[in-house]
């Protein structure tokens, strides 16, 4: 089989990355990578940054990828076929305002589908969102988006009994606002209508002249059923047919996306993760921690969910919440640092997301803030990935008596069932030790049970999805070749339930662990409350970890076990070995700042995150 070259381009919000792969049919190897700043607003569009990155790659590898005019070469050598793959980050290509009738019902489903297409959701409008009519209009006009997704109403019997007008009213509100697409203020905005089939005529009449309506399958044809695929397809279609040809930034990229249409980074990463979860036959959680955006993915029972937060999203970190983020970040910094210093350092990173932390103090702030960003992103993800709301159901006796209420909305993301976490993104790529990446994720996500951490060091996740679509045999290769670096196996005994199972006393034993090594050896350890221990392993070693607890909850089904309950056995390993996290969930911090810094320093020290002399200062501070 002939040699095949794949040039994969990912235009991130701050950085454009170009990777060159080579495939001989039986193997796929990464030849080289180059990054340059993303040039979204430059006169030449995104292509300026892409060409600069390609030029750097050409220089480093001694290959020729572009012709003299900077256009891609189809072939890079004798008998070589060259494929070009293009992805672009969520905040860049598709920015969407979602409108529904009820925010928790049609709004939530439409939002889920929009995120699934790799888009950034900038606003969620609903009848019950608490905003006055004219405030909705103001917000639609002031926040330019590429398209609107409108949902609401069931497919049959919408207007029965004289009701069902809300979705038409929402369409009238949008028509009043007459929003213009971000890519061309003179054009009518594309609107994907994914609501009641019965309301199509009226909605289209309401929006005549104000929006270009595209129809998709109803996202909630019935209150008890959700259909996301149609909206995802429609959003991507609009992206390819309207945004890419008309956006000044994307027009210039057309030559690089001749063979495969450009994909939003979020959608491409989702494809990779679905392939991975299918191969592993396990649920997984992944995070793309970018400079400005954070995307969280879960694959639960084979279903991919994605949410994103960035500077334009619903979870955007606005001026007011910077203070909150600073307060949260302060808890994770093991050295004495004022709030102003943290805020100003963080502000530099927000304004210039491509900049690299130069000093330890800057890196501490960046990674402390990342922990809070991860926590917020997971919270948002858990809220969205939940049981459907609005389903009419028979209440049981507990609900009638008021001791228990279940009307939907309970999250489907149960960290006790997640065995694998995948970490990618530019921010983790700038970490200087595996311990920094692991501690950010463990502190931010607070995994429970036994979880294998995997790290995408070269930021390849966005490329691998489209490669897998290009050639399915390469997908199998990608899995066999261990593209992801194992970071470690985190053992974190179950959630600390209020009023149950033990009183939190520092150093108290929470669980016992048995680690069976490949050479037949065995290590027995305990997980102690408030501490982190690390058991190093040989490079590439896979161990079998078994966890017992005295007064813990079963990780499988939440039922309480008596003394000596057996919990779970998992195999894994990684650069950091086995991490025994006994801090309980949620992690509690001492109130005293000096003691808190000292405790955090001890945790970070256990994972060899930062240099010892930096962390010793925190311990000295407690003594004083």
């Amino acid at each position: 089989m002939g040699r095949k070259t794949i040039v994969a381009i990912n235009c991130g919000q701050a950085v454009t990355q170009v990777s060159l792969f080579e495939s001989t049919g039986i193997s796929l190897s990464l030849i080289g990578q180059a990054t340059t700043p993303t040039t979204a607003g430059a006169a030449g569009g995104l292509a300026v940054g892409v060409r600069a990155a390609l030029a750097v790659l050409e220089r480093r590898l001694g290959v020729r990828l572009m012709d003299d005019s900077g256009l891609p070469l189809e072939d890079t050598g004798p008998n070589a076929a060259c494929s070009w793959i293009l992805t672009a980050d969520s905040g860049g290509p598709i920015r969407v305002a979602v409108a529904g009738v009820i925010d928790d019902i049609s709004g939530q489903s439409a939002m889920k589908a929009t995120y699934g297409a790799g888009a950034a959701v900038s606003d969620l409008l609903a009848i019950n969102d608490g905003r006055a009519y004219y405030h909705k209009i103001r917000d639609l006009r002031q926040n330019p988006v590429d398209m609107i997704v409108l949902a609401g109403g069931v497919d049959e019997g919408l207007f029965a009994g004289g009701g069902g007008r809300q979705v038409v009213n929402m369409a009238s509100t949008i028509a009043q606002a007459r929003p213009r697409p971000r890519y061309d203020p003179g054009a009518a905005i594309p609107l994907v209508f994914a609501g009641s089939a019965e309301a199509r005529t009226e909605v289209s009449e309401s929006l005549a002249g104000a929006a270009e309506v595209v129809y998709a399958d109803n996202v909630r044809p019935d209150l008890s059923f959700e259909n996301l695929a149609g909206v995802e397809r429609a959003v991507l279609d609009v992206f390819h047919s309207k945004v890419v040809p008309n956006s000044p930034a994307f027009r210039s990229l057309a030559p690089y996306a001749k063979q495969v249409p450009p994909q939003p980074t979020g959608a491409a990463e989702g494809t990779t993760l679905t392939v991975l979860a299918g191969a592993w036959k396990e649920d997984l959680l992944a995070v793309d921690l970018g400079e400005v955006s954070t995307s969280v993915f879960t694959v639960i029972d084979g279903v991919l969910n994605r949410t994103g937060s960035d500077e334009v999203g619903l979870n955007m970190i606005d001026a007011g919440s910077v203070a909150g983020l600073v307060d949260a970040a302060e808890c994770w910094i093991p050295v004495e640092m004022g709030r102003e210093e943290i805020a100003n350092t963080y502000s530099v990173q927000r304004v210039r997301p491509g900049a690299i932390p130069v000093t330890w103090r800057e890196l501490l702030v960046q990674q402390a803030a990342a922990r809070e960003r991860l926590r917020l992103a997971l919270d948002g993800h858990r809220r969205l990935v939940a049981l459907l709301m609005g389903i009419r159901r028979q209440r049981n006796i507990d609900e009638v008596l008021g001791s228990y209420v279940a009307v939907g909305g309970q999250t489907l993301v149960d960290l006790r069932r997640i065995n694998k976490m995948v970490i990618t993104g530019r921010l983790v790529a700038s970490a200087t030790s595996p311990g920094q990446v692991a501690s950010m994720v463990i502190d931010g996500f607070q995994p429970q049970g036994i979880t294998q951490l995997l790290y995408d060091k070269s930021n390849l996740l966005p490329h691998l999805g489209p490669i897998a679509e290009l050639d399915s045999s390469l997908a199998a290769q990608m899995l066999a070749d261990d593209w992801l670096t194992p970071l470690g196996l985190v053992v974190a005994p179950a959630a600390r339930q209020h009023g149950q199972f033990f009183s939190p006393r520092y150093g108290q034993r929470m669980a016992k662990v048995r680690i069976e090594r490949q050479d037949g050896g065995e290590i027995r350890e305990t997980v102690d409350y408030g501490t982190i221990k690390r058991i190093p392993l040989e490079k590439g070693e896979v161990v079998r970890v078994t966890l017992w607890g005295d007064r813990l909850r079963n990780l499988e089904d939440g039922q309480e076990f008596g003394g000596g309950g057996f919990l779970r056995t998992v195999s894994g390993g990684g650069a950091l070995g086995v991490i025994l996290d006994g801090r309980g969930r949620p992690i509690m911090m001492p109130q005293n700042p000096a003691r808190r810094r000292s405790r955090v320093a001890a945790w970070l020290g256990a994972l060899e995150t930062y240099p010892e002399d930096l962390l010793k200062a925190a311990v000295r501070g407690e003594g004083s």
Partner: protein
Amino acid sequence: MELTYGALRTMSDAVVRRIRRLVLSGEILVKPGDLIDPETVIGYNTSEECLHFLRLDLDEDRLLAKPLKQVGDEVKRGEPVAYYMYFFGLGYREYVSPVNGTIVSLDTANGLLGIREHPVMVKSGVYGKVDSVVPGHSVSVLSRGAWIEGTVGWGGQAHGELAVLASSAGEALDPSRLGPHCRGKIVVAGGYAGERTLLAAYRHGAAGLVAGGVDRLAGDEFWALSAGMTYEEYASRFYSAGQEAQVADAGLDRVLMPVLALDGAGNVPMRAEAFELLKANDGRVACLDGAEPGGRDNGRPELLISLPWEDTSSGAVPGAGREPEPDQVSFGIVQGLRVRVIGGPYHGRTGQVVGEAPGEMVLETGLHVLGVQVALDTGQTVGVPLANLEAVRSGP
């Protein structure tokens, strides 16, 4: 060639294109080719959808509150429209209009009093020529003049006369030097503005404030304060009608004062070329945009000191008719390029790239990155990662 992450521009003569949007649907009053000045009303937000309701006290189906106005009457913001006196006159409640408008309905059965807000005019804020119009939506304006890009901004747009109160780029203006003479002006507060300076400018009715650096938390707290400050609250708290006219024009229900940090958050000195340009334009009308960088509009905060278009388009001014500046640019990192350092111990310092091609350097954190040598204006030569450089473009 390696590229910089954007550029910070300080241009004494630039052509820029700016969009002015109506907040709500409405009518655009200008047409392409029209010459405009900062006070030109480019359009009105229609009031059709701006209905505000007050809920008056009811007892069963009887209205307890006594209306002071009738349907059809004009009311002003803060004007009492009804009152309710109870418990033999010992208890008293007053209902005031939240907007300037007309009373359009009074439903005695449910106590709802409806006020339709008057159409609100939108001013251009800059001199220039109308380039294109999207009917009922927005106007694209070509403007020419001095243009200074900033780094961090808070609080929307404002225009006013530029008042350079600081005597040097590094001076942190003492709040006691702010007084009633700042009213309606855009104050240049030198190298650094702290919380007290921001509050002093606000209470004296300044239209905006420009400084080299502003503490992030102080800026955020000030923004939160002003974003929640109603006109009545402002008047009662500061005993000043300083922003009355401005608020009424813009139709805002909050008293805002945009703030622009030209060179970053914290105590970062103002770049010399920016201060010189500000000093040269002291007394001229400037438009301050305190946009959050990279935010919803992907904009960055800026100060635009525009000139009347008829002057700039005449043959007397060279370069007339040239293309507007792009929103964001990257420059190739070459020897002699003027740059600004982002982050690290030299944050905010400017200098020039020296030496040959970028080489690998190891940071304090152990990260291996590509970097170049930069000769700072202070005389030191330091190694800086390429990712931590932005081009500084100044001049015409």
